[in-house]
C-alpha cells in the first residue's frame, strides 16, 4: 500500500530549461528539501524563485515558508549570474540531476512522506518497471551475515530484481557486489556527493556501480560524508525499493532506523532470523518478535513479493539454478544446494588439528584465550598457548586465517568463499 504524501506537488511542470535554476536552488545555503518543495509550490518554478520580487519574498516570509536566515541566504544567492555555466560543468562531469518533477524521477520515491527535492545521479536510475529490493544490515557482520547477503543478493539479481543499498561496509556492500557479479543491476544511495566514493575500501564496488548500475544522492556533488547525512539517505534506500531485506542488525542500530522509515513508507520488511545471543542478530530477532516477516530463502522471498505479478510473466521467468531440483527439499538450506562448483576443497591441505581450529574461527576476530577454550570444547583437546599460536600461524600462512592488526584471529573470507562446497 503506497501512501499519499502531503507535500507532493507534481503539478509543477518540468522543462529542460529549468535545470540550471534547480541546480542553483540546491546550492542556496540552508534550504533543504522541505523548504524547496514548499517554495516551488508557491512560485511554480525555480526560475520564478530566482526572479522573485521583494514583495513575493516578503509574502513567503510572512507565510513562514522561509526563516529569516533562509531568506537572507536566498537574496544573497540571487546575485549569482552564471547559472548556466555551473549547470554545464555538472553535465560535463557526467552527473545527472532529477528534480521531483522530472519525468525520470523514481515514481516510488515521489510518494514517500518526505521525498528529496532533487536527486543527483551517476550511471542509470533503477528501472521503475522492474522489481527492487533493498538489502541492508550491520557494517561489521559475521560470516553468516556475509554469506546470506551474498547468496540472497545473487539469487534475486539473477531473477532480475534490482538491489538497492547504501554501498556501506558489511552487508550493504556485499549485497551490491553480489548483484553486480551475478550480472544484475544495483543502485547505491550515498550519504555524500555522488562523485565521492565512501567508504574508500569499496572503490571497486563504486566503479562497478558506475558501469553496471547507478549511484544516487540527494546531496550536492562534492559533499563529504558526515554522520548526520546517513539516516536521511536511508529513507531513499527504502523509498526506492518494494521491500526491505534485513540480514543482520544489532539491537540499537542504524539498520533498525531504516526499518522504521520503511514501515512509515508502507514497504514490506523481511528479516533473516539469527542465533539467540548473537549480538548481530538481536535486532533481527527483535523485529521478528514485533511481527516482521521472516526470509528463509531467496525463492520464498520472491514468491512472497512477486507471485502473480509481472515478474512471473511468461517467458521472463528464469530459473537461476539450472539443472537443480525444485524447491521441495526443506532440510538443507536451498541456497547451498547450488551445484555450481566452487573449486577443490581447500581444507584438504589442512591437518586435522588445523581443520578443527579453522572450524572454531569465525569471520569476526576472536582472541587466543577464547579460541583455546572453544577449541577444547569443540574437539576435547586442550592446547597450550604455544601450540595454539603454532596452529594459528600455520593457518595464516596457508591463507585460511588472518590476523587482525588490533587483535584476534579470524577466517580468511576469500579462502572460505572459494571453498564453499559442502560435503555431506
Amino acid at each position: 500500500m503506497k501512501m499519499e504524501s502531503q507535500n507532493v506537488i507534481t503539478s509543477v511542470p518540468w522543462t529542460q530549461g529549468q535545470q540550471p535554476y534547480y541546480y542553483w536552488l540546491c546550492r542556496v545555503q540552508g534550504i533543504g528539501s522541505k523548504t524547496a518543495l514548499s517554495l516551488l509550490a508557491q512560485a511554480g518554478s525555480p526560475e520564478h524563485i530566482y526572479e522573485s520580487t521583494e514583495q513575493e519574498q516578503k509574502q513567503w516570509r510572512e507565510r513562514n515558508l522561509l526563516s529569516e536566515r533562509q531568506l537572507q541566504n536566498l537574496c544573497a544567492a540571487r546575485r549569482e549570474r552564471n547559472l548556466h555555466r555551473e549547470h554545464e560543468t555538472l553535465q560535463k562531469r557526467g552527473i545527472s540531476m532529477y528534480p521531483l518533477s522530472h519525468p525520470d524521477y523514481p515514481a516510488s520515491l515521489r510518494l514517500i512522506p518526505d521525498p528529496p527535492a532533487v536527486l543527483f545521479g551517476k550511471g542509470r536510475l533503477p528501472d521503475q518497471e522492474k522489481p527492487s529490493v533493498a538489502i541492508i544490515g550491520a557494517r561489521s557482520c559475521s560470516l553468516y551475515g556475509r554469506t546470506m547477503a551474498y547468496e540472497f543478493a545473487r539469487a534475486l539479481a539473477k531473477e532480475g530484481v534490482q538491489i538497492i543499498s547504501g554501498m556501506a561496509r558489511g552487508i550493504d556492500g556485499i549485497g551490491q557486489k553480489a548483484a553486480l557479479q551475478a550480472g544484475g543491476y544495483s543502485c547505491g544511495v550515498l550519504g555524500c556527493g555522488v562523485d565521492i566514493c565512501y567508504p574508500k575500501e569499496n572503490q571497486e564496488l563504486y566503479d562497478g556501480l558506475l558501469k553496471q548500475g547507478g549511484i544516487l544522492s540527494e546531496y550536492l556533488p562534492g559533499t563529504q560524508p558526515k554522520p548526520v547525512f546517513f539516516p536521511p539517505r536511508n529513507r531513499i534506500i527504502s523509498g526506492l525499493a518494494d521491500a526491505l531485506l534485513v540480514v543482520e542488525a544489532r539491537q540499537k542500530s542504524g539498520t533498525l532506523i531504516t526499518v522504521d522509515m520503511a514501515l512509515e513508507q508502507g514497504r514490506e520488511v523481511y528479516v533473516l532470523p539469527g542465533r539467540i545471543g548473537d549480538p548481530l542478530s538481536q535486532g533481527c530477532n527483535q523485529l521478528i518478535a514485533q511481527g516482521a516477516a521472516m526470509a528463509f530463502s531467496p525463492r520464498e522471498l520472491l514468491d512472497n513479493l512477486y507471485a502473480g505479478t509481472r515478474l512471473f510473466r511468461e517467458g521472463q521467468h528464469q530459473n537461476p539454478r539450472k539443472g537443480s531440483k525444485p524447491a521441495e527439499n526443506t532440510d538443507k538450506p536451498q541456497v547451498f544446494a547450488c551445484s555450481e562448483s566452487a573449486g577443490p576443497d581447500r581444507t584438504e591441505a589442512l591437518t586435522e588439528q588445523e581443520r578443527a581450529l579453522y572450524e572454531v574461527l569465525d569471520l569476526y576476530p576472536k582472541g587466543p584465550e577464547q579460541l583455546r577454550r572453544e577449541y577444547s570444547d569443540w574437539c576435547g583437546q586442550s592446547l597450550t598457548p604455544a601450540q595454539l599460536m603454532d596452529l594459528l600461524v600455520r593457518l595464516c600462512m596457508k591463507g585460511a586465517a588472518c590476523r587482525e592488526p588490533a587483535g584476534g584471529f579470524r577466517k580468511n573470507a576469500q579462502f572460505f568463499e572459494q571453498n564453499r562446497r559442502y560435503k555431506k
Partner: protein
Amino acid sequence: MFVTMESATLNGMECIPVKVEVDVAPGMPFFEMVGYLGSEVREARERVRVALKNIGVELPPCRITVNLAPAGVHKAGTAFDLPMAVGILTALGRIPEEHTRGILFIGEVGLDGSLRPVTGVLPVVQDARKRQLNHCMLPKANEGEAAVIEEVRVTAPSHLGEALTYLQMDVNERDTYLTPAKPLLPEGQEEEKEDFSEVAGQEEVRRGVELAVAGSHHLLMVGPPGAGKTMIARRIPGILPPLTKEESLELSAVYSVAGKWKEQTGLITKRPFVSPHHTISDQGLTGGGRIPKPGAVSLAHHAVLFLDELGEFRRRTLDLLRQPLEEKKIHLSRAFGTYTYPADFLLVAATNPCPCGYYPDPLRCHCSPREIERYLSKISGPILDRMDLCVEVAPVSLQLLSKTEGNESSAVMLRRILQARDRQEKRYRNTPYHYNSQLSGADTLKYCVLEEAQKKLLETAFHTMGLSARAYHKILKVARTIADLENCDEIRQEHLTEAIGYRRMDQWRGIAYDPEKKGDGL
C-alpha cells in the same frame, strides 16, 4: 698557611676527585672562593663562617682563600661545606695537619654547626676506595650508605664540633670517640611478595612474560581495561633472577645520586618496579634538570620499566627512549658537560587495542576500523620497532577469577627462567653478550641456526603475514629463547611459529610511520 683537603664531586655517575685548597694569610679580612662554582657552593662561605662561630671558633682577621681544584670542572652541591670548614680550622692551626691526611670529607653544614646529609654518597665512597682513600668523614645521616662499602672506614659525626674534637684527638684514640660505622644489614626485605599464583588464567601472557624475562625481550601487552595488565606487570620483578652484588651496587648508586637512597633499608636487594604515569615529563623519564638527575629509565636499571597506557604518552617523550633502548645508557648534554647514567632496563608496556578498549569483543566494541587504525598508529614507531613480543591479554571470565589454586607460582616460573638463563650464559661465555636479545648482526645468524625447512617456513610467513624485514632477526632471537626455555639445542618449527605469532605490531604502522624515513614524527 696552606692546606689541602680531599673531597669529591659527581658528574652524573662519574666521580671526580676534588681538592679543597685553603690558604689563610694575615691581612685585611677577606674570604674568597674560586674554582668554577655553582651558587650553592658559593653560599658555603656564609654557612661555614656562621657555623664556626656557633661552635665557638672565632675567626681572627685574615685573608682566607679557598680553591676547589681542578678549577676547570664545574662544582655543584653542598658537600664541600665540611672539607672547607675542616680546611679553615686546619689552616688556622686548630687541627694538626697530619690528622686530616688520607680522609675524604663530604657534608653539608648548617648554621648551628650540625652536619646535614648529601646525595650521591655511595658512588663517592666507592670511588674513594678505588683511589686507595680508605677513610671517609661524612654526616651521620649518610652513615649507613657509606658503610655499605666494607673496605672503607667511615667516621660519621653529627655535628661540626664532634668533627673538630675527633680530628684534634690522637690518631690512635680518636676512633673510640667516634666509632667507625658498621654496614647495615638489610632487614626483612620479604614484604609484600607479589606472586604469579595470584593471577588466574592468562596463560598467553604468562608465557609472554616468561619469554620476556628469560631472553630479556621487550614486551607489549594489549588488552581491555581491567584485564590484569598492570597486575601482571607488577609481578615481573618477582620472576627476575636475583640482583647480583655488582648490580645491586650499581643500582643503589643510581638511587643515591637521585636522592632516593633510603637509610632504613640500605642497599637495594629487590628489583624495583618503575611505572611512570603517562603525563611524565621528558626530564622525568630520561633524566634532566640543569644538573641532570637520573630519570625513570635509570631508576629501572637492571629492573622493569612499565609504561601503562602506552598510547597516552606523548610521542616525543617516547621517542627519547630510543637511545637508552639501543645503548643501555643515557647521555644528557648540558652546558656544564655530558652526564651519562646507566639505563639497562626491561621495557614492558601495555595498551588498549582500540579507543573503547574492548576489541575484539563484538558485544562491547563498536569502534570502526578507521578509529582502531588511527588509535594504534598513534603509538610511536621507534618504540614498536624495539618491542620483541606482543601478547593479547584477554578479559578474565568470572569462573577463572575465583580460581585461587592451580595457578603456577612465580617460583616455578623462575626456575624455568634461570635454567634458560644458564643456557645463555654458557652459550655466550666468551662474548660480550648475556642474553639472546642482545645479539646483533651476523652473530644472530651464527647463534640462531635454522635448517632449510625452517628457513622456508620463515620466508612463507614473511609473504603471507605482512612482517617487516626488521622482524626477521627479532623472530630468530625470540625463537632461540623459546628453544632455550624448552631446553632444546636446536630451533624447531614450533618455536619459529610461536615466535612469529608474537609479532603483531608490524601491521600497525601502515599510514603513520615509515621506518625508512629519517626524522619521523607527524
